[in-house]
């Protein structure tokens, strides 16, 4: 069976390591990118099943990356969960309006919970 591919766009390597470890332990194919532009390329190329997107990506803004993903023909159907510790209300609203499936605050969940969330989202999609 083909492993579910999850793309994590995040600039903090420690964070990547944490979630990568968990997702791999749960049997996912976990790829990551440390900046937005590379992430977009990766998304186009690898066509992951789901994208976990951080907001504060150094100079780049995750929301802009989200816009990009959703207007690009090749990537607009990939479900995106915004996964960040940045909790500004306007940013959350913006992300959801732009088509993110969900906006989850990292510190509010533990790695196993995010894994579950990813599974749920994907199953919903298939059922639809």
């Amino acid at each position, binding site marked *: 069976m083909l492993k579910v591919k999850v793309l994590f766009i995040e600039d903090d390597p*420690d964070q990547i390591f944490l979630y990568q470890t968990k997702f791999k332990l749960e049997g996912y194919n976990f790829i990551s990118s440390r900046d937005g532009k590379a992430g977009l390329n990766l998304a186009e190329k690898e066509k992951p099943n789901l994208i976990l997107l951080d907001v504060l990506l150094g100079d780049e803004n995750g929301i802009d990356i989200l816009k990009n993903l959703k207007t690009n023909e090749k990537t607009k159907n990939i479900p995106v969960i915004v996964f960040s*510790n940045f909790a500004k209300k306007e940013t959350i609203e913006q992300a959801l309006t732009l088509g993110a499936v969900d906006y989850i605050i990292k*510190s509010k969940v533990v790695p196993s919970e995010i894994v579950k969330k990813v599974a749920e989202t994907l199953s919903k999609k298939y059922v639809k």
Partner: protein
Amino acid sequence: MLDLSIWIILIIITSSLFLGLVAFFKNPKNKTNRLFLLMIIFVVIWQLSNFFENEDISHNLAKLFLRIDFASAVFVGYSWLMFVLNFFQGNRLIVKPVIKIITFFISLLLALLSFTNLIIFNISFSNGSIRFDNGYLWLFYALAVIAFFVISYAILILNLLKSRGLMRMQILYIFLGFSISSIIALVINLFLSNSLTVDQSRIGLYGIIVFIICTFYAVIKYRLMDIRIVAGKIISYLLIAAFAYVTFYAVTGLNNSFFGSIFTTNAYLLGIPLALCFSIIFTPFQRLVQKLTKHYLFAGVYNSQETLENLTNQLTTIINLNQVIDLVVDTIKNTLYLDKSGVLLIDQSVQPVKYQIAKVIGFNRQNGISLVQNNFLTQYLTKNQKPLVKEELDFLSEQAKNENDRQSFVTLKNHMTKIEASLCLPLISNNQLIGIIVLGDKISGGAYSQEDLKLLSLLSSQASIAITNARYYKETQDFNKTLQTKVDEQTKDIQEKAVRLEKLLKMRSEFLDIASHQLRTPTSVIKGTLSMMKEGDLDKMSSKEKTYFVEGMFQKSVKLESIINDILVASEMDTADFDIKVEDEIELDKFVEKEVSEHQFDAQEKNITLTFEKLTPGPFKIKGSAKYLEQVIDNLISNALKYTLKGSIKTTIKQDGKDITIAVSDTGIGIPKDDMERIFNKFIRGKNARDVYTDGSGLGLFIIKRVMDQHPNSKVWVESEEGKGSNFYLQFPLLK
């Protein structure tokens, strides 16, 4: 039947007496009027005696009348002189009473002597007229009488030249009338009587008519002795009487020619409708006559009742002070045909009393204020709340109780004359003088009559009320305006505060957004790692991975502590009134040395050389905040350690003229050129920073900058090249 001459004489005498009586009864208390009547009486006596001396009566009676003629002539002269003197009373013609008494005695003497043979004697009759010869004292007599007349002419002429307007006209006519009459009378009766016939000599009598007519004209047109209205009324009565008289005789005449007599039946019957017609016509005719006399005699006389009503009505609708003043000034000016009018407003509630010209027409503005300059007028008007006429001022100054007052009255009169004001009306409200209406002369030159003054008094009381109200209203309006301005100011103030508050809140909110993110980042790693440990995932990892995991979590917890600290410090610094005390005396070299030694362990762990060097000899004393500067230097060295992977960190201190400069130079990753400008801002990290040290708060340099800003004459700056290293400098003024 009496012949024509008698009728003429009768008419002359009647009209003279009429004139005299009217003048007297109009104002019995006025000396001028009394003297006028006196003079008229003597003129009448003279006329009668002059007439009868030539009539067909007994010789003795005729002689008596001649003597009476002479006697009364003297007194005519005397009383005329007295009248003239009194008319111009106050115009520097104060004649000593002694002179008046002497004059009286001369007149009395001459009058008595007329009954002797010293003045006239040898009285005879020829051609129906009486004759006489001049006695020893005839010349004396003649000179005395002529003197009386000449002196009075002189006075008249003098005053004619001096006066203006109304007075001038009055004087002119009196002068004309009397001079012509008296010259005729004098010449004919004194000098020529012996050579003329009766009828010719009676021309002297008839000459009086000239005087009567002139005086009458002066009365009507120029309000001489103010008897014009009475005179006018009498004229209209006379006209109506004439109408009745004519009608009666017309009807009687008609009746006589048609019916033979008015006592026939036909006449009675005709009389009925005629009587009805007459009664119907009479009243309109009366009104017509009154209207005509009013129009022709009193053209320009105002209806005071109407004026007052109009003004009152208008005043009740106006509340604006300026409009009220305008209305008052204009009404008075136009009703009385004045050339100048003005209103002064007085504020007695402040000290010194404040005067203000509300409106003037025709007056020079400064003149208005000069009138009230010495407060005398104000006090006077406050005490006697009635109009002050300039002409009265002489009288008032005479009556003054002390020298000061007397002088003040004279000054005031001079003042009023100078600025051409003739009347001051007080405006009284609440028993206080709130203003003065100042009026000039009438354009016609006329004097202010009693009616005028009465009207003006009423006008001014109305005006006082209206002005007081308007003033209150204005005060209220001004107060409202001030209130509104204050409210607007406050509103603006509050709005400004609200805007500032909003900005602060926004800043706060932004700060919290980022600060919360900074805190959550290490927290999520710690939490995540621990949860995985709980779930037993650690056992599924290799031992190397395990170690890495646990180490990472530990580092994050350390980081959390430092971030919390940074955030708290930055939060404190973020407010506009961040103010630290820079009062400690610090020996900088020792300070830095201490920090350097504290970081030696970390440096050695990373294999980086950390040194401290004094480039110039000390001392390096400055004034600053020990607590915060410790943090600053700590931050700089920590940063250098964080972002230097290999090489060295050199800390130096040197004295540069008046300043001390500390430098921390590393061989680290440097700062990208694009980030140099903003590197001291909140939450900003160099783009390359994360690669080397992931968890910087972005607040370190921000804190350093804020602290340095709080130290007077100090600064911080950086020189850097990406990939090569950075040099951070701190500069302080040396403490002497």
